[in-house]
């Protein structure tokens, strides 16, 4: 039997590392090993590589290089931003505004603070997962110190009205953080246009290595250091820099900036083909999230009468990797809180399926998903007690 080509459609979980990124990193895993804090030439070589990476990241998001702090990933960047501002601004207030569709990194951090003297307002979202900027405005009190709203949702791809919220935050003089892990490198993200004070990003969602990310911190933002120790990162995040990973993030940012526009266009066309194709071929299927105001690579559908994990297993046997918001496939056995917050029933969350496309995704891959999926779903529906014969 000829091995089937494996098709990876889970780029929202992680992306493969770009070979160009790997190549850029290699010298820093061997020859260029110096500690950037050392003043000799070994150290200075490493330092200038890290600073070059910082410039590239800053260029990608329209920031100044001194506003970029390297972190150990997106989760750390979110933790840093939220705890950092909360504890630095306790004197001003204790109220944080966020949404029910944030990534765990934001949600759990807010929950942690909630148990420690902070108050957290979780805004409603509409059935597409959109936050209404007016709701943000209404939630502000004289105790509000931070607003945290994600740029684009990792599950349904909905792009939030960040610039509008940014304006409201600025008018009210409240810090505004956005988790842009899914957005940076995929859609244009410019910190000044968005009016954000802090922005979290992660390398492995944009074809860089795992374990490295960055937090943009607008000049003048008051927040406490995340790690205490040496003088690295202007004393905001102590610890010897992970130079190879930082170089990788820099390279990934450079490639993203170069290729984003063309790639987004290409992905949008593939995305829409897949969405239309699924809707056409599979009865009782629904798109989750907005048709156009969504990440170029995100497809999230709910298929009635079938459960997500069983769809994933079948797809995997066909070599296709996807993801689901079904309770059965989560370690908590709870359905996706994002889909529930959007008002989906448990059944529809159960039958949710996410395909997230990437640079290696081809027309043929999409055609293959469209060929295989209806078959799988028909097979599972044939054994579903929820579908009475004749429906």
């Amino acid at each position, binding site marked *: 039997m000829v091995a089937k080509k494996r098709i990876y459609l889970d780029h929202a979980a992680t992306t493969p590392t770009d070979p160009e990124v790997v190549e850029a990193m290699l010298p820093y895993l061997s020859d260029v090993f110096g500690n950037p804090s050392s003043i000799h030439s070994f150290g200075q070589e490493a330092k200038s590589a890290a600073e070059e990476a910082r410039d590239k990241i800053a260029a990608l998001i329209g920031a100044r290089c001194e506003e970029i702090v390297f972190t150990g990933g997106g989760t750390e960047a979110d933790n840093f931003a939220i705890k950092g501002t909360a504890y630095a601004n306790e004197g001003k207030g204790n109220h944080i505004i966020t949404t029910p569709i944030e990534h765990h990194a934001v949600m759990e951090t807010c929950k942690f603070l909630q148990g420690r003297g902070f108050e957290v307002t979780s805004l409603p979202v509409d059935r597409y997962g959109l936050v209404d900027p007016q709701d943000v405005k209404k939630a502000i009190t004289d105790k509000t110190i931070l607003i945290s709203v994600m740029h684009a949702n990792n599950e349904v791809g909905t792009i939030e009205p960040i610039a509008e919220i940014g304006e409201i935050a600025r008018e009210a003089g409240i810090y505004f953080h956005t988790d842009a892990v899914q957005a940076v490198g995929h859609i244009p993200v410019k910190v000044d246009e968005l009016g954000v004070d802090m922005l979290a990003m992660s390398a492995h969602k944009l074809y860089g290595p795992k374990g490295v990310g960055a937090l943009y911190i607008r000049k003048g933002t008051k927040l406490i250091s995340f790690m205490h120790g040496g003088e690295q990162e202007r004393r905001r995040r102590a610890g010897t820099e992970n130079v190879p990973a930082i170089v990788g993030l820099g390279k990934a940012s450079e490639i993203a900036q170069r290729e984003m526009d063309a790639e987004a266009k290409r992905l949008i066309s593939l995305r829409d083909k897949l969405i239309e194709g699924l809707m056409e071929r599979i009865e009782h299927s629904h798109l989750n999230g907005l048709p156009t105001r969504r990440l170029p690579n995100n497809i999230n559908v709910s298929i009635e*009468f*079938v*459960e997500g*994990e*069983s769809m994933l*297993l*079948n797809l995997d*046997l066909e070599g296709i990797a996807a993801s689901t918001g*079904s*309770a*059965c*496939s989560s*370690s908590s*056995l709870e*359905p996706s809180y994002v889909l529930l917050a959007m008002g989906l029933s*448990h*059944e529809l969350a*159960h039958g949710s399926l996410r395909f997230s496309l990437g640079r290696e995704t081809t027309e043929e891959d999409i055609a293959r998903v469209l060929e295989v999926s209806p078959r799988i779903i028909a097979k599972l529906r*044939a*054994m*579903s*007690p*929820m579908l009475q014969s004749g429906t």
Partner: protein
Amino acid sequence: MYSEQVMEHFMNPRNVGEIENPDGIGHVGNPVCGDIMELYIKVEDGTIVDAKFKTFGCGAAIATSSMVTELVKGKRVAEALKISNRAVAEALGGLPPIKMHCSVLAEEALKSAIDDYLNKSKRSENERTS
């Protein structure tokens, strides 16, 4: 994450479907994750001669449904009542701990189908004697 037997039963589930005029139907929902299982049995002279299922659930739920219908076929009703979720899981070469509750659903579906059968036969006996 699943054993070969689980995957085999998941890909080629035995006894999928409904039985027309069954002697017992079990319909149970999983309080843990919200899945649903329906199990039908046909009984002749106290022996389960056929069993079929319909399941809305994960790979483990489908595989355990398939396995439990295989295990009960040909068994006396009293024997079938003794089939535990562990026995079903073992017959499948084990389940990941987080998926044990799916096998509980299979056991409950079976018990409820047998209960249904026992109630029905009691009722028809009462009708006959009265």
